[in-house]
């Protein structure tokens, strides 16, 4: 087990170094911006994965935390809170918000839980749209965390940092009792409580971690695009994207969200340039194909293929016997 662990960390370091060096190789601002979005959504997917993948709670309201991160940065800095302090405060506010709504939403199971997450995010969107405090639908300007000619490079590197951090959290989850408890909850809540797991409390804890990193992502996004409106940073589209990226790549796997973000965002960018408006159609077809043929996502599918090959090689003890 430790050998495998070492391997995974080596791969991680290589991937992080390679993706960081992209910042020096790519000179085009547009490409840099696309890379920023890929890294950011890899981080968001990994954050979503803790709740939606490991704990198996299909949240479609994660944009709430994203939006809180974005609006905290905009509104706190307007009241002369230092830039990076606002980023951190935003994440803390989002975590506090998660603690409150988690207690309510996790009373519900399955599709009812999912609907309640959508509702929570929509309530925030409506408040942001109608409150003078957030300047409603007109939107607010957000300060840039970085300026100058390395603008996109620096944003890209911070997104890679956030993705790495979130990956390490996922890695810890996958190797710990905490993660095992989340997976038990995903598989069967009754069995989980029969082995002494306080299911409500563990679901809540997973949401807190997830909300924290999602809000950091929201701040980064808001700061990079320098202007936010509710329909932009509190739209259900972003929630859906986090979920789809993770499920496409493989929910509950370490690499799934990363693979999903790279594939989905680069595909949508390519199609957007080549097919103009019909790119959404292709995007949709891609999702349908994956859901139909790879229900466990790309990484899950590869894992299955790998197990199948291994079994073919060593058929000796295959098939479960009852002794």
């Amino acid at each position, binding site marked *: 087990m430790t050998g495998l662990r070492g391997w995974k960390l080596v791969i991680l370091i290589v991937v992080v170094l390679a993706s960081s060096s992209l910042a020096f190789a790519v000179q085009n601002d547009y490409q840099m911006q696309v890379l920023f979005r890929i890294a950011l959504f890899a981080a968001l997917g990994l954050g979503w994965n803790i709740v939606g993948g490991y704990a198996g709670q299909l949240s479609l309201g994660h944009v709430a935390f994203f939006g809180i991160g974005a609006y905290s940065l905009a509104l706190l800095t307007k009241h002369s809170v230092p830039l990076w302090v606002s980023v951190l405060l935003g994440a803390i506010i989002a975590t506090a918000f998660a603690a409150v709504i988690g207690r309510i939403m996790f009373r519900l199971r399955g599709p009812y839980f999912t609907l309640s997450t959508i509702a929570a995010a929509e309530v925030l969107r409506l408040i942001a749209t109608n409150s003078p405090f957030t300047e409603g639908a007109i939107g607010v300007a957000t300060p840039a965390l970085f300026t100058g000619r390395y603008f996109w490079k620096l944003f890209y590197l911070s997104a890679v940092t956030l993705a790495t951090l979130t990956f390490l959290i996922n890695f810890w989850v996958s190797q*710990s009792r905490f993660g095992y408890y989340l997976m038990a909850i995903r598989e*069967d809540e009754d069995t989980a409580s*029969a*082995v002494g*797991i306080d299911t409500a409390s563990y679901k809540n804890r997973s949401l807190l971690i997830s909300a924290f990193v999602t809000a950091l992502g929201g701040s980064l996004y808001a700061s990079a695009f320098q202007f936010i409106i509710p329909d932009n940073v509190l739209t259900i589209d972003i929630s859906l994207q986090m979920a789809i990226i993770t499920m496409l790549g493989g929910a509950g796997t370490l690499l799934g969200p990363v693979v999903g973000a790279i594939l989905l965002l680069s595909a949508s960018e390519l199609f957007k340039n080549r097919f103009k408006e019909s790119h959404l159609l292709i995007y949709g077809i891609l999702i349908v194909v994956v859901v139909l043929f790879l229900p466990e996502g790309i990484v899950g599918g590869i894992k299955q293929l790998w197990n199948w090959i291994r079994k073919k090689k060593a058929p000796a*003890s295959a098939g*479960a016997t009852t002794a």
Partner: protein
Amino acid sequence: MLSADCCEDMSVVLHLENVSKRFGGLRAVKSVSFEMNAGEILFIIGPNGAGKTTVFNLISGFLHPDEGSIIFNGRHISRLAPHRAARLGIGRTFQIVKPLRNLTVLQNVMLGAFMHTGKLNQAQEEAGKIMDFLQMSHLKDFPAHGLPLAALKRLEIARALATKPTLILLDEVVSGLTPGEALALAGLVKRLPEWGVSVVGGVEHVMQVVMKIADRIVVLDYGAKIAEGKPADVVSLPVVIEAYLGAKYKELPK
């Protein structure tokens, strides 16, 4: 019926006193009382719908009684949440097996062991011992969803045993198995007290298993206790025969 000082006796692990549970108009459990001692194997038997599973759910905190009290190791547990009951030392299996389907057998058992250790390798070691005891170590890397029922029944026991309970509830532990599988599993259940647990089993009709391994039997019918005692005595009682086979058989000679 039972003296009030019952609960100070340390050898009494579990004591149900006039426990009742209603579901709407249906009285699923009617004023059931019994107690059991440390290291004992007690089986609750009764025809389909007699209330066995409800009793298990009441003891393990998945349901709470409307009346009466449940005392476990001298503590009232009638209102405890399931995970708290589990942490106090009540392990359970489910009648309709509930494995963690996409996890391997080893991981399933480790989840039980995690109650007492946060370390992965320690949990793995604990799980290994228990899988050895239940003769299922050769299955450890298989995902639970592919296993046949006999292995799943063992997995349920293994997972519960890994939490190091002092009381283990085995709901319909041999139902759906072939006679051979059932007897093999019964042999293992009989050895469970070696692990420091008392056993409450529930069985609908696999009587030869019960006769072999139970120290004592409680018979339920329509939610009420109709008999209690040693297996050989209980099965020949007219009320028991009547509950299982109907009134016209109770006069038949042995």
